């Protein structure tokens, strides 16, 4: 059961538990937001697209 919710992008889980994917994405994006929040305090001044100039 737990396994079903760990890999929600797999097609059979998408079909059997359509809600698993949104829930997974929600949780994942919350955890990833922590990265944003913590890093945001460190280097707020840095411009976002600095590397884009490389090419």
């Amino acid at each position, binding site marked *: 059961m737990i396994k079903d919710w760990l*890999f929600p*992008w*797999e*097609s*059979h889980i*998408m*079909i059997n538990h*359509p*809600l698993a*994917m*949104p829930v997974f*994405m*929600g949780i*994942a*994006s*919350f955890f*990833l*937001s922590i*990265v*944003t*929040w913590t*890093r*945001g305090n460190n*280097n707020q001044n*840095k411009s*976002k*697209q*600095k*590397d*884009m*100039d*490389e*090419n």
Partner: protein
Amino acid sequence: MERISQYQLFVLTVFFQVGTTIIFGFGAAAGRDAWIVTIISLLVGIFVISIYLFLSYLNPGLTLVEWFPAQFGKWIGTPIAWLYPLLFLYEGGRILNDIKYLTTTIILVDTPFLAIILFFLLVVAYLQYCGIEVIARIGEIFFPYFLVMILGSVVLILVSDILRVDNLLPVLKNGWKPILASTFPLGASQGFAQSLELAMIWLLVSTSHKEIVKTTLFATVFSGLLILITVLMIITGIGEFFYKIESFPMFALVSKVNIGGIIKNLDAFAVLLFIISAFFKLSLHLFFAIRGFQILTKVESSRKLIIPITIISIYLGYSVSSNYEEHIKVAIEVFPYNLWIMLLWILPFALLIVTLIKRAIKNRKKEMAQAKE
């Protein structure tokens, strides 16, 4: 800062919107009325893309993933913004699966999935290193050939006399219900509302916002017409029954081309057409995903993210669907409902409302301040 031109935006938009629909067909559930679905989807698509463009006007200088933190605030906006790169990744994985099934069913039957995915992603990763400018330039180079190939197949199909207009009749046999059902969310989202992703590159276009709006809408109409032409050709060419059951209807149509017994079996060329458009769609998905990750994690160089994202994509390409029937079932019955409705329709509309309200309040405050003075 990389810049892309107006024409490049047009090309990328068309490639992105046409994407894989050209071979998988559009609105197949509506049978021979799929062309009506295409038209309605196009109209709805134009409407929703205009809203996205309006959102980018309201949030000047910000990309899609920055709209939400800007309007909803840091605490609510950031998690919402994170949903999008994840969606892009998942959709990239789906394209890889499309390619994997198509190539192994039709041209490379005994080749293992992994070899195809690796090879395909290798080229895509190389492109990610080259950057969006180069992706756009390749688009420019391939676009005329892409059009010529489509036009060429139209001509060949017309010449080999396999189209039967009778196949379109009777129109609207089962009424509007199945048509509307396959228009929303699938038809209007597939390609059209998906163009929300292009909000990641609207900023890079070196023209005014007005020109971006014009170009994007024109490109939408253009790709809508391309899809319409192919849908009409497929239905009149192979009939409703095969349109519904064929895994790759465009492929079935092209394989019927037979001119004097000499020019025939152009199946492989149909596959090439598909590979080119799928290739651009995948490259763009991954580019947007990498860009989104980079903006949100505030990593300085997106180059660092290319290898991890490519590895994730290899995994997704391998695991997103375990067989073709499930893959299609998810595409038609699950994925549009559980992800697209939320991410491509509800959230942008909510964002629009919030932005407008905030704007109104701001204006009111300004007026009051002015009145005080």
